[in-house]
């Protein structure tokens, strides 16, 4: 894991339960019960954030399950990561952001 300390501190402040693990040379942040944008059902889900290139995307935000209530998106990512099944949509963001901003940008995909 090689991210600026102030970004890690900011991540901890915004997402107090955040945890980290590595697999296949990638760092993943587990965000337990991440609050999803208004209208999403369910409203909170465990999410897994990979801020670096992974499985063909510059960064990716995975969820423990697919969900509804958001604009229709292409749920094309069904991966086993860290001993668990995760789901993601096809969505790319500007990578030149802080970790917290990157997570928000990924969540923007689900805002109506």
């Amino acid at each position, binding site marked *: 894991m090689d991210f600026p300390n102030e970004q890690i501190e900011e991540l901890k402040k915004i997402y107090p339960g955040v945890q980290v693990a590595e*697999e*296949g040379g990638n760092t993943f*942040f587990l965000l337990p019960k991440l609050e999803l944008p208004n209208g999403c059902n369910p409203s909170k889900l465990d999410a897994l954030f990979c801020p670096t290139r992974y499985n063909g995307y510059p960064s990716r935000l995975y969820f423990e399950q697919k969900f509804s209530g958001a604009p229709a998106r292409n749920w*094309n990512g*069904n991966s086993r990561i860290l*001993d668990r099944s995760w789901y993601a949509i096809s969505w790319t963001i500007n990578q030149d952001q802080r970790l917290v901003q990157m997570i928000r940008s990924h969540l923007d995909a689900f805002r109506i």
Partner: protein
Amino acid sequence: MKDIDIIIKLPSVLLNQIKKDLIRPHEFASERIGFINSKFKTFENGKTIILLNDYHVIDDDCYIDDSSVGARINSEAIRLGMQSIIINESGCFHVHYHEFSMELPEFSNTDFVDNPEIVNSFSNVDKNQAHGMIVIGNNGMNAQVKLPGFDKLVKVDRIIEIGYPFNLSFISPAYTGFDLKKYDRQSFLGENAQLLISNVKIGIVGLGGGGSHIAQQLAYLGILDYVLFDSDIVDNTNLNRMIGAGQSDADNKVLKVDVAERVIKYVLPEAKIEKVCDKWQANPEKLQQCDIIIGGVDSFLGRNDLEAECRRYLIPLIDIGMDIYNDYEAENPSMVGQVLLSMPGYPCFKCLGFLTEDNLAKEAAKYGAAGGKPQVVWSNGILASNAIGILVDLITGWTGQKDKIVYNSYDGNIGNLSEHVRLKYVKKECLHYPIKECGTPYFRKL
């Protein structure tokens, strides 16, 4: 066939490290002791797999001078083991080496007096982990384990050294009910070869062009225990290459796993076959219980997922695949393929340069593109046969090759299968999947 209940998997890279430490002479102790961390999983069918993933050396100063035993360690050493349980959220095994044991090593009477006390200390730190004791011999291992819910140590049924080749220690009797005469022509594989072949569980992921050859050859080889994964049905486009499939299978939309089962059972009626008519991700526990996986998946993404899971559960993965490239400037299409072995502790697909973020990105960009990939029967057959050869050597060690890294490259236009040039430059250790990360993942709170 008896179901094996408790299996220990120990990667050869870790075993080499352990032996190197334990064989060192000590000033007064006649043998050495070490601690190995473990992760474990008990499945719904009652089978337990224990994965050994880290080793702790005991300092010379921690030995007590006691000539009545081979080695006695002090409380500081035991504290080291206990701390490793907390730090790594894992179990801990006491390990020592019987250098002169040629067969399956046995625990001594002293071992049964002293070691259970140490194991109890480990268990008191975390009762939800698997703790135990292992004795390593020159040609095998023996172990006893204390699992959560048990108040004493129980015998482990089997220990597998995960390396090239495998080294299987059968502590409970192995299955021997096969007809040796049937396998007379492959007896050159070794005295115990058929015993080993008959006692491993093989998973095949993808039973199309490549996987169907694999299933058939494994059956002829005498593999008795299978898990077959494929969510697909047979259609007309499979009939140019899928072994065992016929027109009626396509007409009746028969599942590919059912065709593979039929092929295997035709050759080997006694085979035990579990079918997962879905993606393996829908039933990962079936995959986690296999000893070796052969993957015939058709995407880089699929390979990445499969390799990560196999590494986590210390399962060697043999991957086969082929492609046809139509370069606009070339007069003829190019047929290429590969056979790779992903062995825990050794170079992974990324280390070998086969799986890169660039080829994953290119694949992701093409997502949803219509049309099936070109595939033909003979190249699938060549690649599958090569994979079977690797699997047999892995199980039996008949060629005498050790710690082999496999990345074979196939040029279908000239019919040549050879070692990939990248093997000359690859490092022997894997940086992407450290052995320490195997088993249940450990999430650190930030």
